[in-house]
């Protein structure tokens, strides 16, 4: 097919503009990735883009990752590279902490919200409408409003600095959106299926476990990814309720700390940042379809 000249020009413009924008959006992350493989001296002596001009002499290695993860061991070559104050970065501990915070803080709200969404959608009970309106109202409430009262409760209950406290906080802050999203999905399930199960004498609980949960898997997955990314990337809730103890700190807290202490050690900062980004990026790209579906269903989160 032959295009007329002005149509061709328009096409070139469209593709060109998009390529340019995509490049601007990708280069920052790419620069971070490249720098994380370069030695301290290389990073501070030349821009990361020089690697592209002269790939043969780039001298890339995983050393920075071994230093920040605390897996350098007794390797004398690596030991020589570690400066005073950099021996105990040990991000591996923070990775485990981030997982310990994130997995329950994703599953618990989903379970509680799925029950609630079913209750709102398929059981008639007094107060159903006002309670659900309450949930909708809470969708946009900024979580800052809860920090002081909940912190006071936690101090009284000795919950401050525990994972349980953080799970519950993330559950509370994630619930409105979870209930709203899952309600929209569960309430639109075909009525006949549920009614015939009722006719057969199944209880609400059985219907929920056997029928509704399996049918709602796409919606559950959407919200799970949402909440996973939200909790993994959260800084504020961790700072307030987990506090600054190295043995419980999550990755975002450690990264913030590294920005303060190693402000110019870009070889370590870039490696640390990438450690914190790997898992969300993998989850994101492998489950993007579900994530987008969730975004489309509930673009009202507070």
């Amino acid at each position, binding site marked *: 097919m032959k295009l007329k000249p002005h149509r061709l020009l328009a096409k070139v413009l*469209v593709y060109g*503009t998009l*390529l340019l*924008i*995509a490049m601007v959006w990708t280069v*920052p992350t790419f*620069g*971070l990735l490249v720098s994380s493989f370069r030695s301290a001296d290389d*990073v501070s002596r*030349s*821009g990361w*883009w020089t690697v592209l001009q002269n790939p043969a002499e780039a001298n890339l290695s995983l050393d920075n990752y071994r230093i920040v993860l605390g897996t350098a061991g007794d390797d004398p070559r690596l030991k020589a590279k570690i400066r005073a104050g950099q021996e105990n970065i040990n991000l591996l501990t923070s990775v485990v902490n981030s997982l*310990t915070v994130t*997995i*329950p803080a994703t599953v*618990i709200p989903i*379970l*509680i919200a799925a*029950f*609630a969404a079913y*209750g*709102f959608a398929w059981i008639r*009970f*007094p107060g159903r409408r006002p309670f659900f309106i*309450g*949930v909708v*109202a*809470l969708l*946009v409430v900024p*979580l*800052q*409003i*809860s*920090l*002081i009262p*909940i912190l006071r409760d936690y101090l009284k*209950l000795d919950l401050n600095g525990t*994972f*349980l406290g953080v799970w*519950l906080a993330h559950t509370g802050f994630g*619930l*409105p959106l979870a*209930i709203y999203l899952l309600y929209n999905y569960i309430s639109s399930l075909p009525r006949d299926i549920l009614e015939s199960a009722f006719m057969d004498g199944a*209880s*609400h*609980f059985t219907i929920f476990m056997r029928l509704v949960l399996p049918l709602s898997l796409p919606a559950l997955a959407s919200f799970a990814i949402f909440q996973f*990314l939200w909790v993994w*990337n959260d800084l*504020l809730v961790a700072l307030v309720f987990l506090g600054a103890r190295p043995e419980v700190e999550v990755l*975002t807290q450690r*990264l*913030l700390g590294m*920005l303060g202490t190693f402000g110019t050690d870009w070889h370590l900062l*870039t490696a640390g*940042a990438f450690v914190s980004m790997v898992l*969300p990026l993998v989850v*994101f790209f492998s489950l993007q379809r579900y994530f987008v579906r969730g*975004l489309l269903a509930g673009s009202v*989160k*507070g």
Partner: protein
Amino acid sequence: MESLEVKKPGGLVQWLVTNLGRILVSLFIPAITFIVLWRTFIFMRDTSAPQWITAVVAIIWGVGGLAALFLLANWTIERLPVAWRVRMTPFVFVGPALAILAWYLFLPTLRTFYFSLFDKSGQFIGLENYVYAFTSQPMLESFRNNLIWLVVGTGLSVGFGLLIAILADRTHPRFETLIKALIFMPMAISMVGASVIWKFIYEFRPEGAVQIGLLNAIVVALGGKPQAWLILKPWNTLFLVAILIWLQTGYAMVIISAAIKGIQEELLEAARIDGANEVQVFFSIIIPTIRGTLVTVSTTIVIFTLKIFDIVLSMTGGNFGTQVIANEQYTQMFRAFNFGRGAAIAVVLLLAVVPVMWYNLRQFGRQTEAF
């Protein structure tokens, strides 16, 4: 018409017992979960097991414990007489969620307002903290900066999102998918991670030294002087806003793109046959059709931006004239330990979202007359 609530003999007692039962059921699951988990934690806190073992045990306890409790609650309910079972079942389902929402979001709005009336030493001072929240220098600076974040951040995120969505719609599907994935990617990155990425781009070395920050390298290559972007008043806030735009454009793009793909092809074709050019199609058909989506996307990003915190804390700590409301709240709480002021600032944030809340509720009321 017969009312749903059938009055039975002994109505009042029955009513009281029923509602008491409902409240108990609502509190039962969270309370027991809470106590069991709490005790386990105290136990685990004192063990010296390796970290990953504690982590696995914690995860299993947290998730498994909750599931077990829902099962237990249901088992209990099913042993009740039918009438009671019918009354209690909804509260096994809805109760735990309502109890947690009440504790974590609903009651805190009231309690935060109450705390905002006291000073650092616990003395009642009326609305004095609000005088600070509305007239103090750091807060006025925060209001100005938050306004910049809202206008520039939201405007450009939505603007870029719209541009990319429109253009990508005209390209080969494979190309479209690739471009969108690249622009969407930052959504997976934390704001602290993004701050590391961008701080590296803004890195400054004195004139004459090798510039390792991309922005200064470009400026120098074009013959300019290197700048310390993050302390360059009044522009530094804009350099922070750029990070937000980088993070949020993907979101705007995805939602707007879905809306554009939902426009009927016949509508666009008809306009083109009538002689409308692409610009006219864009302004008189595409924009009016997706107006609702644009409003939703903008509102979501506005609410997100209003609470912006991580970026400012990681990049400048709120110094050099970049303070924002949420970071000022954090500073008051955890640097100055002035909870009263922190509470007053939180109330200001809440007031700012009230119009959106009101709009959401009205929309919800309209859509669900028969709820």
